[in-house]
Every structure is written in C-alpha cells, then in structure tokens.
C-alpha cells in the first residue's frame, strides 16, 4: 500500500479556459481511489493527462517517483468516458488485440481474454461483434479491454454509468479483486453512494481544482461537524434550552443538534441521563454527498 501514482501541480488550458489548476493528488497501490466531481470539473482531462492522451501545460505525473514513460503506460489500463471499441470486431478479437498492444504474447492474450470474459459473465457473447451487444454488455467488453493485460494502474472514467445493478456488482467485485492483488485503481463517478461504498481514497475536484483528497476515513473525520444525534425515552424538547446546543431536528424522542465550540458533549449526555434512559447518543458522520456539497462550495 504505497503511493505509486503522483499527480503534481498539473495545469491545462483549452484555448482561453483553464480547465485544470494545480491539480495534485496521489493514487496508492492496493487501493481504490474515487475521483469525484461535477460534469466539466476536469476529471476526464486529468485522466487523459495521466494516460498520455493529452499533454499537461505544466506540472507532471510520476509513476514510482519518475515521470511516466511509454513503457510505464503499457502497464496501465484505461477505460475512456466515451466508450469505444471497433464496432465490427468480435469481443474476443478486440480484447486479445488490445492485450497484445499492451505487450502480451498471442497465447497469453487469448488465455487471459477467455478467463476475463468468463469472470465478467460475457463468454457467451465473445464471438459477437461489439455493435450487436446490448449497452450493458458493451460496457463489460470495455472493462475487459481495460483489464486484459493485468494492469498495475487502472484508470476508469465513469465505469458504472450505463450498467444495470447486477453488472455494477460484477464490475465492483472485479475491481476489488484487482486492488486486492496489488493494482492501483482510479475511477471517476458521479454516483456518490457507490463511491462511498467502494473506494478507500478520494479526490474531489471542482472547477479544475482539487478541493479535498485523502483516505475516506480521514476525510470523514476532517469534515465531521460537532453534530450529534440522540434518542431518549421521552420528548427531547428540553434540548432547546440546553446551553451551547443548536437544535437542528426534533422528532419526538429523537433529535439532531450541533454543539457550540467549547461545549462538552458529555455534559449534554449527563443532562439527558438525568431526565431518563438514553437509547442512543452519537456523533453524526457526514455522508460523502454531504462532504462533497461542502467542499465544492
């Protein structure tokens, strides 16, 4: 679990528009890193720069501490946002072809393609041209194309868009397997619940700048407000008059409140206990969606 990919102060403009401003974050091996941002925030541009499809105006991307070379990129797997495979070529043929372009021997490419299609439940469609597949299956083929050479770094642009829930689970499981076997996985998504469930690390981008980056747990601690939820036996309305407490929600016996700086949460707990049994008393951890809303403001 070491940092393998380092995006360092990358800038990029298209014409007059600066789409990336000093973008920096890291991707660790063995972990899933979620790359989150609204449409047009700069996710795809960043990914294209990592893959060498686009050049940075300044800044650099390093792999194991050195600027990324063509040889390094042979070990990267990429799934672009706008999906594309040869429409008239069969699934097996193109996955094998892309495997070979990434340096696999013909035999290895064939063997891994077979295994991967099996794993992605796409074997039956292996002999069909891509244009004949359903959108969900095209997506699976695309993922197979990105994974065939067992990449050390996987860069997936919106890998879950267009997938049905079953396919999402399959792809999710495959990505986890890859991370467990040591690959670094960077994927972008706007499905925040999915990212929350899946990723170990996060980078949040808005208007071309990284607003927050780090491990999911760290970020949640970082953005945890002094907010608590409490459940007692009788009406919790008394909290309104408690010093240092701002009541946010009151629903009979349940309440959510913020504490003013310097107020002791244990004092509030004691005064609750003094009024009767307390069923629950806990800090409220923000969801990723909440953190996201906060950092992009």
């Amino acid at each position: 679990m070491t940092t393998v990919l380092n995006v360092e102060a990358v800038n990029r403009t298209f014409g007059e528009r600066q789409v990336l401003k000093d973008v920096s974050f890291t991707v660790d091996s063995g972990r899933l890193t979620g790359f989150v941002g609204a449409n047009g925030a700069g996710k795809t541009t960043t990914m294209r720069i990592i893959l060498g499809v686009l050049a940075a105006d300044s800044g650099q991307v390093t792999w194991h501490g050195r600027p990324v070379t063509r040889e390094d990129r042979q070990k990267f797997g990429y799934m672009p946002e706008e999906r594309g495979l040869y429409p008239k070529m069969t699934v097996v043929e193109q996955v094998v072809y892309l495997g070979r372009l990434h340096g696999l021997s013909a035999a290895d490419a064939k063997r891994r393609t077979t295994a991967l299609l099996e794993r992605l439940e796409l074997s039956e469609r292996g002999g069909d041209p891509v244009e004949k597949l359903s959108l969900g299956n095209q997506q699976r083929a695309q993922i197979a194309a990105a994974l065939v050479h067992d990449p050390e770094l996987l860069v997936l642009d919106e890998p879950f868009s267009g997938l049905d829930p079953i396919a999402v689970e399959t792809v999710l499981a495959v990505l986890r397997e890859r991370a467990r076997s040591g690959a670094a996985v960077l994927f972008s998504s706007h499905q925040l619940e999915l990212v929350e469930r899946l990723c170990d690390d996060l980078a949040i981008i808005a208007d071309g700048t990284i607003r927050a980056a780090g491990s999911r747990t760290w970020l949640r601690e970082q953005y945890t407000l002094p907010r608590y939820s409490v459940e007692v036996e009788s009406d919790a309305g008394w909290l309104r008059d408690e010093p240092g407490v701002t009541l946010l929600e009151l629903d009979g016996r349940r309440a959510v409140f913020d504490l003013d700086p310097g107020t002791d949460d244990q004092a509030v707990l004691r005064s609750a206990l003094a009024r009767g049994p307390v069923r629950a008393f806990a800090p409220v951890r923000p969801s990723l969606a909440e953190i996201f809303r906060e950092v992009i403001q």
Partner: protein
Amino acid sequence: MTTFEAAKLVAGREIRVKLRDKAFLFGTVLLLFFTALGVFLPMLLDGGPDKVAVVGATHVAALEQAGLDVQVVADRAAAEQLVRDEEVSAAVVDGPVVLALEDAPQDVVSALSVEPPVEFLDPDALNEAARFLVPFVLSFLFFLTTLTFGVQIAQSVTEEKQTRIVEILVSSVPVRALLIGKVAAMTLLAFGQLALLVTFGVIGMRVADVGGPLIDALIPTIGWFLPFFVIGFLMLATLWAAVGALAARLEDVNATSAPLQFMVMIPFFLVLSLQENPFAMTVLSYVPFSAPIAMPARVFSGEAAAWEPYLALVILLATTALTLLAGARIYQGSLLRTNGRTSFATAWRNPTPVG
C-alpha cells in the same frame, strides 16, 4: 514494445479485418471477373471456325488449310439451301463461285485467291486499340485503387477517432505506430490486389493466346508500373490517413478528403485526355501525382528514353518522403481532437498533443 512491433500488430489487425470485409472480397472478385472477360471475350465471341459448304472436291484442301469447317454437298441446290438455312456461312460451287446471304465472306474469298505477300517493316508496332487500351487500363487501376483504398484508409482512421478507441490505442502505443501500421497494411493489400489482377491477366492472355507481341511490350511496362504504383500509393496513403484524422465523424470524411480526391482524379483525366500530346505526357510523367500513370504509359508507347523512368521514380520518392512527413504531422496533430472537424492549420501547428 518497439514502434515496429506495435506497427506490425496494427497492420495485422487491418489486414485481418480487410480480408474478411465482404465489400473488399466482392470487389476483388469483380475485378478478376472483368479481367477474365477482357482476356477471353474475343475468343468466345469468335465462336469457332466458319462453316462452308463445297460442291465437288476441288477446293476442299485450300479451304481447310484456311481453317474453315468444310462440308461437301452433292450439288448447287443443296449448297444454296444450306446457306439460306444459315447452316453454313457460305458455299463454294463450280466456277468457283462463292454463295453468301449478304456479306462477302472474306476468309472464304481469300482462301480461294492468290494474295500478294506483305512484308512488315516494323513487326512489333502495336495496333491502335492496344496503344489506347493498355495505358487506360493501367491508369484506371491506379485511379480506382488509390481512390477506393484511400477513402477506406480515411474512414478507418475516422472510425477509430469517432469510437474513441483511439484513446486506448494512443495510451498504449505511439501515434506513429498506428499510422505506419495502417498505411503499410493498406499498401500491402492494394499491391496484393493489383499483383493478383496483373498476374491473372497476363497468364490469361498467354492461355487464350491473345495479344501476341502485345505481351512482350506489356512486361517492361508492368515492370515499371509496379514500383510507381507502390510508391505513388504510399505517397497518397499517408495523406488519406491525415484527412481521415481531420474528420471527427464519418460524415465529415467526404469534406476533409475532397482536395485529395481531386489530386487523384485530375491526373487520371489529364493523362487520358492528353495521351496524344507528347509534350504534355512528358511533363505529366515527371509530376509526382501523375507520374505513376503517365510514365508507364510512355514506357509502353516507347516514347520514354531508358533513363527517364528512373528519374521520375526518384522525384516520386522524394515527394513521397515529404508527404509522409506532412501526413504524419497532420495525423498526429488532429487524431485526438474529437470536438468537431479539425482545421488543417490547427493540426499543422500542434503536431504533438501527446505528452
């Protein structure tokens, strides 16, 4: 992986795809069919020797010697009947008198008469039809191949761009490997198709025993046509790939490739219409875009001095080197610009979008 290895993989895919492309296979079969038609049709139309009816045995030997199918009949009435029934094309009766329905049968008449001997002062000179036909066929082959293969090169580049697979390709192999592989594959296929047609045609002419001295004049012409064809094709192929990369969608290809289509068509029509003008042909045989068709034509007609094709080939090679560089630059500068059509100037100014 080296650029060469990558280019080989790319070329391999292009060739596999093409060899399974029904339109390509059908087109090749169609061209072979027309070649066969051209070679064997005169023989088929000929319909074998003419039949002739003869009364008495006097002229039988002379007629048979002229290659006619002789049928001996009893009398004039029987002979006349056969002619009227069109069982035979003519009849020879006592006199000798030749009976025919309306046209005088030249072969029968000359078999029975004594012709003065003719001495040929220039026995190798080719007839008028061949003088026009051979350059036309070769020009047409070059025109057809560069245009159809060219459009296909452009389309296959645009397809990769439009489907975005180019992003995956470029992230794993150098852009020039893609270009080299594609151009090499198409050149190989175009040359293969042409070689197949030419071999088929020449062997067919030998088998059908048509052409005679024509074949001997054809061999050096074709010998020159092949290198001119390959280099001329290569010169255009990179440019086709470049105009394909300028387009963002297949619908754009026609517009981005229009200048190139003219560069293929104009030399073809110029060579055809100026064939009788030695000065114009000399100029055209050195201009790189028309040299692949004009120089072999001049070799065929015997107008070109021995050193001339070499010089034209050197000029063509030099131009090809330039178009390869220019084509590669435009290709690299436009391949990853997926937002609409790329202008020539933008592509030229930004030859390396890849970091």
